[in-house]
């Protein structure tokens, strides 16, 4: 396990929570992002994630550094899974520990916002009647119709 990693196997979130725990940490926040069955009224069968792995891991580590500068005393670990994921499975885990809880919540939420801006990972939604790479959220109906 690395503190900032792209993985292909199911994520065990506890590993990341354990990694950030230290005697001076009073608070740990653990965020897990899961594959949702319904998005904008469309039923997802499963998702496929792809990443530019070396750059993605570098960007995750950059987010960690950013957080440790902005909220001194925090410690962060982040993993994102790629490949095919079923409904309910964990796509991303973010663990942050901190002496005080406020920082642990704020830093954790900052991490997921930055992941969505910065980290080269792409999600393809597979529905009953089509697939789509999600990215710019402007839907392209002709792609939406592709079987």
């Amino acid at each position, binding site marked *: 396990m690395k503190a900032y990693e792209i993985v292909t196997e199911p994520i065990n979130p506890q590993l990341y929570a354990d990694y950030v725990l230290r005697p001076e940490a009073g608070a740990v926040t653990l965020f897990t*992002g899961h594959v949702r069955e319904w998005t904008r009224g469309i039923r997802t069968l499963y998702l496929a*994630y*792809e*990443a*530019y792995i*070396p*750059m*993605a891991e*570098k960007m995750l580590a950059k987010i960690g550094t950013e957080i440790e500068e902005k909220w001194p005393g925090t410690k962060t670990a982040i993993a*994102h899974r790629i490949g095919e994921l079923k409904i309910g499975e964990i*796509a*991303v885990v973010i663990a942050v520990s901190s002496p005080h809880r406020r920082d642990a919540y704020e830093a954790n939420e900052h991490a*997921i916002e930055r*992941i*969505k*801006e*910065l*980290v*080269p*990972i*792409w*999600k*393809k939604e597979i529905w009953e009647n089509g697939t789509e*790479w*999600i*990215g*710019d959220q402007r839907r392209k109906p002709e792609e939406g119709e592709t079987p």
Partner: protein
Amino acid sequence: MITIFYFAGLREAAGKPQEQAELAGRTVNELLEWVRNQYPNLSLDAVRVAVNEEYALPEDVLQAGDTAALIPPVSGG
């Protein structure tokens, strides 16, 4: 020579995950121009370019041996 990576929808539209091109000495902007000429129906709106795994500026100059990745809007999380 530089190596160009295509990801996600761009990989599918280009029909390949990567290729090599004689673009050493050219800028990131010129690389995008080159890609646009090769694949006229590739949508490059909002695509960022990463050189050697760091986001690059349009005027950055490519060196021989660089990797340039076309990064369509990301959707992790």
